[in-house]
């Protein structure tokens, strides 16, 4: 700025370009940040689900169901989350959001039966979706199973847990 309070044209151009680049840059950053936040929440939720499986402490109804059908699950077992990967499946016009499908890879060497693993996997997936909904306060937009889970720009579904 000179003594008469006038900006140089170069300076105005530079600032204008800066604002333009910043806007584009921040849009991208915000987008990536939201996805990162969701996946961090999903990881957190999956860990909580895996811990419940490991310690064999379940919601009351499920405990009673396991008592009748899968008594093995009443004892603790080692359940470890190995990886959470996701795939962007593009914009979905029905939800007006981008669809992300994630898959959790876990290990439970002491649980051999496929049905029992399904029970453990369902809990891990449920808590992963629930954590996403809690991070964005979108529990009222989804069903009791938090499926799909919503954030501002994305919605999340999942594959069954892959056991290795």
């Amino acid at each position, binding site marked *: 700025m000179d003594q008469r309070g006038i900006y140089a044209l170069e300076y105005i151009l530079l600032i204008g370009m800066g604002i333009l680049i910043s806007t584009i840059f921040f849009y991208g950053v915000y987008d990536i940040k939201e996805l990162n936040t969701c996946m961090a929440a999903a990881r957190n939720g999956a*860990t909580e689900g895996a811990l419940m499986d490991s310690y064999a402490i379940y919601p009351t109804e499920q405990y009673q169901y396991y008592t009748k059908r899968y008594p093995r699950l009443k004892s603790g077992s080692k359940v470890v989350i190995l990886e959470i990967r996701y795939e962007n499946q593009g914009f979905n016009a029905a939800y007006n959001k981008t669809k992300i499908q994630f898959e959790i890879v876990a290990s439970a060497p002491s649980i051999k039966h496929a049905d029992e693993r399904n029970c453990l996997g369902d809990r891990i997936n449920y808590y992963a979706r629930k954590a996403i909904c809690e991070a964005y306060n979108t529990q009222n937009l989804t069903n009791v199973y938090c499926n799909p889970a919503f954030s501002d720009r994305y919605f999340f579904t999942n594959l069954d847990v892959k056991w290795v």
Partner: protein
Amino acid sequence: MDIKGVVSIDFIFASLMILIIIPSVVSIAEVRMGTSESVEQIVIARTLTENIAETIDTVYSGGEGCYIILQMPPKIADNNYTLTVHPTEVVIVFNGKMGSSHHNQIRLYDNYGRYRSKFPLEPGGYYNISNVKIDDANVLIIKKIRKI
């Protein structure tokens, strides 16, 4: 900010970055705090049932005359709970969750010598678990006692 009151573009840029990052950090932190509280409850509940099941096994395997005084915690991570001893397991219910730990099969009696199919242990209570012989069989008698 310089003496003319002009803020540098670096400062504006850094401020915007912070404004973008902080909400996501806060939301993740909230979720993690909730998770850690839930995990704390689960771990304490599991530890409690395992300890009681182990106590029962110890008294049972100790033979006639063996006894252990048990002190129940008043709460589990600020949550109320109910805990019941069954002939083969200890079952805990708290905050909409349920879990159990197994022990050797036992026959339970109260301090009046009556057979019990289950015996609730109240939070904050003191209990004497003792091994006695009734009809030539070792049984466990659980008796609520006053504070030691």
